[in-house]
């Protein structure tokens, strides 16, 4: 018995070593990725090989995962690997967007102003909510004018064109009026960095992904970044109900629209056929949606597209531009969302501020064509000039068009 103890213990030790080898052989083999931009190996795709590339402009071979998401690039333990990720699975949340998406080669600090998306978004009305805050504070007597003093977060704009150089962070707790405090508690869930309300209809992420990562439902977050944003994504915030200023609560829509026309706008609104046929982004430009880099006090200061932008007036045709510069921003936008094959020499419509409506073109017969940015559907349309429209030249805002052209539901 005594003599066999050592061989027996030795056998157990060998068995334990065999266990070590067996456990090791069961581990998944690490899959290395060395993005050309960072040159630093990362192992995220050991587990995440099934994730689709987020967009053609963000190839994983070039960028990898860590440059945007953060995380421990060498760790193969999920908890450790994920422990330092920026804002969970959404690095575009505005609290971390500068680290994730910023940098002069990417989306902030670039000399080309129209690449500074982060500055534009941070100062845009969609993230400052400055107009709503100013209106509520004015209405309930906390300020004597409608100027914007507060935003969801403090922002500054040193090169202001609107005269507003900064907004302070809105602190509902500092307000004396109970309605304004309640507004702060209950109504600040629409700006793009707010956590959305519960419910399928409100499903969206925060930051850039609020718009650019359209998701089918609250549970189906997608690894997709797109500029082809369908109207349904805009609807996650817009068109889902209304605020009751007496109770300071948001009243959700009670109807459950099944057709596009029913889904469009609230029952009180007047609208035309193209407004419920097209997607929001077919007409509304990036400056309107993402901001122009300046701090604005109200939606009406930044939203400027009218029916006449595309259709002109009885006296004038819409503005057009023939593309002669290969570096024209129109080509970049068409490259990012290739629904049209834009070529040098093509003539497209432009807005009053000179923004290209790059998904339109002027047809040789004098009519126009628009290609849906999200649907790729083609729409032919005519100018007002030469039509039977009798509206006077001074009354050309969309509200006047609605007088004759609104749709009955």
């Amino acid at each position: 018995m005594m003599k066999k103890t050592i061989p027996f213990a030795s056998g157990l030790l060998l068995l334990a070593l065999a266990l070590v080898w067996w456990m090791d052989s069961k581990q998944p083999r690490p899959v290395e990725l060395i993005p050309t931009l960072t040159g630093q190996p990362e192992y995220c795709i050991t587990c995440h090989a099934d994730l689709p590339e987020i967009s053609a402009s963000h190839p994983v071979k070039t960028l990898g995962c860590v440059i945007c998401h953060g995380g421990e690039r060498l760790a193969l333990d999920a908890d450790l690997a994920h422990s330092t990720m920026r804002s969970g699975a959404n690095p575009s949340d505005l609290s971390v967007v500068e680290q994730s998406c910023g940098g002069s080669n990417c989306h902030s600090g670039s000399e080309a102003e129209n690449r500074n998306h982060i500055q534009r978004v941070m100062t845009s009305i969609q993230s400052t909510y400055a107009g709503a805050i100013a209106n509520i504070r004015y209405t309930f007597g906390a300020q004597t004018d409608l100027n914007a003093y507060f935003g969801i977060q403090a922002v500054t704009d040193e090169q202001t064109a609107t005269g507003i150089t900064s907004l302070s962070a809105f602190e509902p707790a500092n307000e004396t009026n109970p309605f304004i405090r309640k507004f702060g508690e209950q109504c600040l869930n629409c700006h793009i960095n707010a956590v959305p309300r519960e419910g399928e209809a409100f499903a969206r992420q925060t930051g850039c992904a609020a718009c650019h990562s359209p998701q089918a439902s609250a549970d189906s977050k997608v690894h997709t970044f797109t500029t082809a944003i369908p109207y349904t994504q805009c609807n996650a915030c817009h068109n889902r109900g209304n605020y009751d200023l007496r109770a300071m609560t948001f009243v959700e829509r009670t109807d459950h629209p099944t057709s596009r026309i029913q889904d469009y706008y609230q029952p009180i609104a007047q609208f035309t056929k193209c407004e419920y046929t097209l997607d929001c982004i077919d007409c509304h430009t990036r400056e309107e949606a993402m901001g122009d880099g300046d701090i604005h006090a109200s939606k009406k200061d930044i939203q400027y597209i009218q029916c006449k932008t595309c259709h002109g007036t009885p006296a004038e045709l819409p503005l057009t531009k023939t593309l002669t510069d290969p570096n024209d921003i129109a080509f970049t936008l068409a490259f990012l969302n290739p629904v049209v094959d834009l070529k040098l020499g093509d003539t497209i419509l432009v807005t009053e501020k000179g923004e290209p409506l790059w998904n339109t073109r002027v047809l040789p017969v004098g009519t126009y064509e628009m290609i849906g940015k999200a649907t790729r559907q083609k729409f032919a349309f005519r100018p007002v000039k030469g039509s039977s429209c009798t509206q006077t030249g001074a009354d050309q805002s969309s509200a006047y068009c609605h007088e004759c052209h609104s749709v009955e539901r």
Partner: protein
Amino acid sequence: MRPSFFHHLHPPTIPAAQARWRYTLGAGGTAIFLMLVLGVTGILEMFYYVPNPQDAALSVQTITYHVPFGGFVRNLHYWSAQLLLIVSAVHLLRVVFTAAYSHPRRFNYLLGLGLFVLAILLDFTGYILRWDSGICYPLVTGTNLIKTIPLIGNFLFRIAIGGGEACSTALIRFYTWHIFGITIAAVILMVWHAFRVRRDGGIAIPPPALRADNTRISRNELVRREVLAILVVGIILILMSTFLPAPIAPAMTDKPAVTENARAPWFFLWVQEMLKWGDSFIFGVLIPLGILAILALIPYVLPKPAGGDIGRWFPKSNRLAQIVVGVIALIVIALTFAMFIS
């Protein structure tokens, strides 16, 4: 059988009663085995470890996840170090509770106590070498304790840490202390300690006239028992290292925050608990050093145990030393638990 080199490291015979597991608990021998494991696994880790602040934590992640069996080797190193502290403490308690420190082994008792302190320092410096976001509290707190010592605090701090801030420049100091400074001292003390065991007449035992049992076992049997102990400890280490991964945390960012709920490594939790009570110098330096001084003085100050009591568990003539060390041990364990659950 002609004795091999390893047999020759042992005395030809040793007393049977004092060679029993239930007497030695195998603690001293196990400590030597664990130090050998630590040496071998430490050398393996050095092939991949990069001692500069930017790369250290990443190289630990490389060892853990990408070097073949690197995680296993790192776990072995970690668990050997933790077991070494426990086994050393058990060894110390055994020596006190069996009056084995008595003359002529008083000096070797001091050598052993020195080894215990070095083992703690090795564990602490090794813990710091992870250089990830989990180590900053112990690093800042531990090194600031040195500064609280009157007159020579800043000087000692500079010796231990070098210039600059603890969380940015101290890594190369800790690396060198861990791998050369303290390790060389520990190896020298370990060899000296083992040499003195034989020089002082082998394992502690009553003088010949007072022995109840004169049976002895051969060195062959002693080596056999040691091999068995090595196999058992080896199996335990392998299983622990397979199923219990050593702690690891994300790499440090630019300015590591020392958070409220940060924890000292487990063997310093009792000091961390005391630091809540007030002055850092008193509770963080004086009291731990005082405890060390009390332990060191036991063989020299307390009444000498009776000759016949040496080499027996809990002898009467040694009661005071047992009570002193027992109370210290209980207080340290209680403080550790208090901090652990807080």
